């Protein structure tokens, strides 16, 4: 298993390894029978790709910032299938994909908040398809995972400090 985990331009309030563990715990909980996550170092998500999904959620507290999540179109569809227990060959409905990404960013954001903003507040998730979500702040961390059989099916988590 390989994960891309980069520090950003400013010191993050949590270790990269902790955020990786959050992402992996989400992965294993919702997709226990699927492949272990893996990613190529060059893996990137183009949020403007048709079907690509982006989500963000604000955290307010000891650490105030935004946690974002981006999925390639293929990864978004796969996440929807595993989370909603759809057949492998089913193309998930658009609203199912939206709901899935919304819940993913909520769960990832909530667990990151527990690590770095105890007693803080978690906002409600915002989701967009095929668009770049504008985030004010400096990037502190980037974690990427993907399915090993289709390395372009990428899930990317970023933290931005406000």
């Amino acid at each position, binding site marked *: 298993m390989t994960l891309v985990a980069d520090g950003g331009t400013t010191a993050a309030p949590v270790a990269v390894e902790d955020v990786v563990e959050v992402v992996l715990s989400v992965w294993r909980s919702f997709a226990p029978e699927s492949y272990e996550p893996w990613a190529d170092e060059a893996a990137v998500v183009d949020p403007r790709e048709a079907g690509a999904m982006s989500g963000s959620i604000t955290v307010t507290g000891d650490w105030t910032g935004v946690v974002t999540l981006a999925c390639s179109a293929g990864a978004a569809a796969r996440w929807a299938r595993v989370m*909603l227990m759809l057949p492998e060959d089913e193309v998930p409905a658009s609203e199912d994909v939206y709901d899935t990404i919304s819940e993913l960013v909520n769960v990832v954001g909530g667990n990151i908040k*527990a690590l770095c903003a105890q007693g803080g507040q978690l906002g409600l998730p915002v989701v967009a398809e095929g668009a770049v979500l504008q985030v004010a702040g400096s990037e502190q961390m980037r974690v990427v995972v993907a399915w090993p059989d289709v390395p372009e099916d990428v899930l990317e988590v970023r933290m931005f400090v406000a």
Partner: protein
Amino acid sequence: MISLVVDDSRAMRRIVRSILGSAGMEVLEAGDGQQALDVLETHLAGGGDVPVLATIDWNMPVMDGLELVGALRRRRDLRGMSLMMVTTEAEQGQIVRALAAGAHEYLIKPFSADDMLAKLDLLGLAPVGAEA
């Protein structure tokens, strides 16, 4: 057995409904706390049984999960209903707040089906013969 699943995420409602369904429960659904109260009123007015369980997300629009727990706990006619918070709020202080407000169990997202079935077991709601 009837249960009530309250979460603003349709995806999460579907996941929880599937798990509770595997435990033999019928499921009512609501997308926020106020809607949950409305769904309950309609269900009870129609002669339905009091649900044995409500799973409740914390962060929801309109009425959040903590408010809903308080509202349900004030209802004498719903005393038999177990309340399980199912949320990303993972901090000790939040867990204490929820339990103090009247929640019986607390399950942190992400969770597996086995995690939720184990909580049902703790509440005495696991199906006979089922292993959590």
